[in-house]
Structures are given as C-alpha cells and as structure tokens.
C-alpha cells in the first residue's frame, strides 16, 4: 500500500517535471525564467502558482540543482539562478552577480527503525558525524545508547543514505558535520558533493526519502518538507547550547535570529550550528543569483517584481510548507541591494520596490 502511494507521488512529480520541461521549450516572453536549487522548489512553485493567478505572469523554474543554477545564470540562459550554497563575494564579483536569500529551511536526519517513535531518539553532532564516517555501524552502539538511555535500540546494522547528485542540502549537512567534528572536516569536508566514506547514494531529496522509507536500519538526511510529507521518522539533534531540539519553523527561525545579515557581504550567511537554546543546528537560507547588469533589464525587472511580491505576500505560504520567511529587516536590506546594484545600461535601477 505504501509502495503504491509512493509510486503515485513519484509519478506526479515526474509529471510536473515533464510539464516544467515542456514549458521550458515553449516559454512565453512574459514568463520569468529561472533555474537551480531543488530545496526551495516547492515554495517557488507555490508562489508562482498564486502569482500567475494574480498577474497572469508565469514563472518557469527548472529545479535542476544548485550547481546547474549557478552554471545557467553565468551563461545567461536564465534570468535568475537559485542556489542553496551562497557564493562568496569574490565569486559574485568575478561573475558580475548579486545574491539575496529568499526563505530559510532546514535539513533533518531521518531514520527507519522498528519500534521507535518520533522524539524517541536524539543524536549529537559528533555521533551523527561518526555514523556518516562509518565509525558507528550498529544502532545499539554505546555512543547512541548513551544519548538515549530510555530507548531500547536494536542490534541492527546502520545503512547510511546520502545524495548521489550534488545538492545544497548536502552542503548544509556536511557544513554542519565539519563544524562539529574535526575528523569529518579533515577527512571529508563540506561541499555540494563530497567523497562519502560509507553508504549508498540516492538521487534527489525524493530518492533519499524513498530509500530511507524502504530500508530498515537506514539513516539519511533530507530537506524538512520532504521528511514531513513522507512522514519519515525524524531524529532530534543536540545543538550548540547542548539542548535537544526538534526541527520546526520555530527552531529554524531561532537559528536565523542569531545571524548578522547586515554585516554579511553579499548575504553570505550559513545557518549551521548556530547558538541559541532553540536553534536547529542544520538550517540555511536559499539564495537567488542575478546579474548586476542584466542582458534583458525588462525580464530582470519582472523577476524582481515577483520576488518583491513574494516577500510581501508569500510569507504565509512559505510557513505552510515549513519554510521560514525572511525577517522584515533583512527584506529591507535586500530591497536596498536591488536598487543599489541591479542596473540597466542607462545606469538606473531596473526595478524600484513601491514599498
């Protein structure tokens, strides 16, 4: 029964992908074109749907992954690129790009263990890193048992599931592990794709979610929305302040609250292992990349208009999908960046927010 449901959702997703592809080939001039991260795809699709009803302007967003988004915006085949991994200010300057965050989300470790209920099991960063390093191979390992004295853990082998494609979710996850485990930092490091010491690779958040659902004893990491939709068993994490937290919009918000956006050049902020008693340790913003001097200023203006609308009206929709909208003060900073940086050939800003 579960399998049938999975196949249906998968078929639906494949269907959407097909529709997306056919739209891409027959994109109308009025449509805004963008490509990149899969992590924010659900919310961009939701915004686009409502925006289309209000303004009759559609968004053609290809969720091909952050790396693809960066490539496509550099080659100017799309109006905006989307990436979960922020570019450094040097990379931005070299390519003539600016970036701004749209929403905040989080990655969560999800497991499949019989007899374990949500909230039953928690891990700290070091233990999580040791599992993904292949140092801890059984669920009843002393390190895990010590963190969960109340829970009866089976003597089952741990199967690690990770992404096989490059991904911003992987970046957040490995960035967090690098911060909490020196061993991970020296042996593996942080990137959108890494050399995994153990485990099997699955394509996309859906792939990881499905592999975890199917395999007893598995642990994987997925974007929160996917874990929630697929009703995966989520592991609580012990954060920097040694407090056990469950992932939620509030705990992502708590992580974002401690970041200093104003001082970060090019909004380069990574929200992993943030301080704060309620902070979820694997949170991150997702970013939009645009050219400072767009080839087609009219198209760029349309794209900015869309994001301006999304900051004004999209907050509720984002929360419904378990993303955290950007705080108001950050949005003000973003609007300022737009008018300061994105200019047409005449040197005037291509878009000025009415707010």
């Amino acid at each position: 029964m579960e399998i049938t449901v999975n196949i249906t959702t998968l078929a639906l997703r494949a269907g959407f992908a097909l529709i997306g592809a056919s739209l891409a080939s027959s994109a109308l001039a009025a449509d805004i074109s963008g490509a990149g991260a899969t992590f924010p795809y659900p919310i961009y699709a939701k915004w686009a749907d409502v925006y289309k009803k209000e303004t009759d302007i559609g968004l053609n967003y290809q969720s091909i992954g952050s790396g693809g988004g960066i490539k496509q915006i550099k080659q100017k085949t799309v109006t905006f690129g989307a990436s979960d991994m922020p570019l450094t200010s040097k990379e931005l300057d070299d390519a003539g790009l600016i970036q701004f965050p749209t929403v905040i989300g989080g990655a969560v470790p999800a497991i499949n263990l019989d007899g374990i209920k949500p909230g039953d099991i928690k891990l700290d960063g070091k233990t999580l890193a040791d599992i993904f390093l292949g140092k801890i191979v059984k669920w009843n390992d002393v390190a895990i048992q010590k963190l969960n004295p109340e829970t009866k853990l089976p003597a089952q082998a741990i199967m690690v599931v990770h992404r096989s494609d490059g991904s911003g979710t992987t970046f957040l996850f490995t960035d967090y592990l690098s911060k909490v485990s020196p061993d991970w930092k020296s042996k593996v490091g942080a990137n959108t794709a890494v050399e995994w010491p153990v485990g099997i690779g699955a394509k996309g958040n859906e792939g990881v979610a499905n592999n975890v659902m199917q395999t007893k004893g598995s642990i994987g990491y997925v974007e929160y929305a996917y874990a929630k939709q697929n009703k995966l068993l989520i592991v609580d994490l012990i954060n920097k302040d040694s407090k056990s937290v469950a992932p939620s919009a509030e705990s992502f918000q708590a992580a974002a609250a401690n970041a200093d956006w104003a001082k970060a050049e090019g909004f380069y902020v990574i929200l992993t292992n943030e301080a704060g008693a309620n902070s979820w340790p694997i949170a991150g913003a997702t970013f939009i990349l645009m050219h400072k001097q767009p080839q087609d200023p009219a198209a760029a203006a349309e794209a900015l208009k869309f994001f301006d609308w999304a900051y004004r009206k999209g907050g509720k929709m984002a929360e419904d999908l378990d993303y955290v909208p950007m705080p108001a003060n950050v949005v003000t900073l973003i609007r300022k960046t737009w008018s300061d940086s994105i200019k047409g050939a005449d040197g005037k800003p291509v878009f000025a927010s009415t707010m």
Partner: protein
Amino acid sequence: MVDVTMSEATAADRARVLRGFIASDKLFHNLTRGSALLVLIILFGVMVSLFLGAIPALRAFGFNFFTTQSWNPVTEKFGALAPIYGTIVTSVVAMGIAVPVGIGVAIFLTELCPRVLSRPIGIAIELLAGIPSIIYGIWGLFVFAPFLQQTLQPALIELFGPIPVLNALFAGPPYGIGMLTASLILAIMVLPFITSITRDVFETTPAVLKESAYALGATTWEVVWNVVLPYTRAGVLGGVMLGLGRALGETMAVTFVIGNAHKINPSLLAPGTTISATIANEFTEAVGDLYTSALIALGLILFFITFTVLAIARYLLSRIEQHPGL
C-alpha cells in the same frame, strides 16, 4: 535525309535525357555519400570534443586517473577506477545471466515450443525491449530491491558465509540495492535483444540440416548443440554483443538501483557505481572545470570501452566468416 535529321534529333534528345539521368544519379550519389560521411564526421566530432573536454583532467591526474578510486569533489581529486570497475562488473554479471537464459528461451521458441505459444511468448519478449529504462529503474527501486533485500540477498549471505572467496563476493549487510541488483536489472533489460536476435538466426538454419541430424538419431539437444548453434554462431555473437553494448551504456535503470557509491567493494551486494550513472548523477551539479572535465574523461573512457567491445565483436565475426569450419 529526313531520316537522318530525325535520328540526329533523337540522338540529341537521348543525350540530353541521359545527361539528365547522369546529373540526377550524381546528385543522388553525392547525397548518399554525404549522409555516410556525416556519420563519420559526427563520430569524429564526438570523439574530438570528448577528448578536448577530458584534457584538463587527464593532464592534472595523468595515468593515476585510471588507477585510483578516490572521487573527491571537495579536494578535486578524481580517479575513475570505481566507475570503470562497476561498469565492467555489472555488465559481465548481467551477460553471465542473460546469455544462457536468452539463448535458452530462443531454443525453446524455435525447437520445442508448440506453435500456438511461440508467437505470444516471442511478442512478450520483444515488448520487454520496448519498456523505457526509467520504468525498469523505478520498478527496480520500489519492487525488486526490497524483494531481493528480504529474500535472495540474505539467502546468498547465509549460503556462502562459510565458503572462502565466495563469502567475500557475497558479504552483507543486504542493502537491497547494489551491484548485484543492478546486474539483475541489466540482465532483464538485455534479455530481449539476445533472445529476439538468436531466435531469428536460429530460424535461418536450413530444415534439411536439422532433419538429417534427427534422421541420424540425434536428440534435440544434440541437434541444437551440433547443428543449429555452429550454423548460427555469427548471428548469436552479434546478438550478445548488441546486448553487451546496451548493458555497458545503460544509465537510468542502473542509477536507481546501484547505490551510487564511489568505492570498489569485492562484495556484489555492496553499492557501487558505473560510468554512465556517475555522469548522469553529477554532471548538472559539477561546479569547477576540473570536476566537469573528470566527468567528460569518464565519458571518453566509456566511449573507448564500447568501441573496443564492438571492434572485438567485428573481429570475431570476420574470423567466423572466413573459417566457417572452426
């Protein structure tokens, strides 16, 4: 007089018509030659662009690219050994399963099967070839892999556990997906190619040869082994090579079930990766010139492997044709 002018006029007409024919013949000749040359140009172009794209990686890693299995996008150290190993092992295992089964099915269809059944079975097998590989992938991931994880894999681990060498080949834990699952899916995918081609060539065996053998008292097995197979082995080999070509290059179905791990593990139950799966997984997200170049170099290697397989097949076929008695 009149006759002469008439014939002169006809001659002129004929010459003109002939010239027209020659011109159109020439045009047709050049068109077809152009099409043939275009194939060569495209092939050459693919080879050159793969090679040019691969140069940065080959220059950076040299021969080590072919002998190391570290695939690290963070430090930009790339070695192709794990995908090469995975490609060859999955294809070889798949052929090991599909060739005997495929030829067996073809023998059944041509020699043993009642006529009423042979058509539907033949069509069903050809339909297998028409299923898109993504369907095999999804089916493999959702149905076949969990099934193997619960049945075949634990049985194999238990069966070969006490036997040295084989216990390394079938070492657990049973993940469900892995090299063996990929090989089994590949075997199912290449089976129709092998079966339909071998069946077609088996049918070309002259009835008089078979009947003579039967008249001499040969059993069905002896007829197949000593008459049909020797008579058709060039065609059978062709079918096998076509299947191998598909197995080597198959991407989507393998990506779903192989586990995509850049590691060489002696166990067939462990996750691995193939060249085409690696490219499909990582190309869109490959940031940086060296990463992209390493993936293109993988493509070049795959091109080289399939080219070699085809060349060997051609060579074997030509030998068989020259010495039919061998």
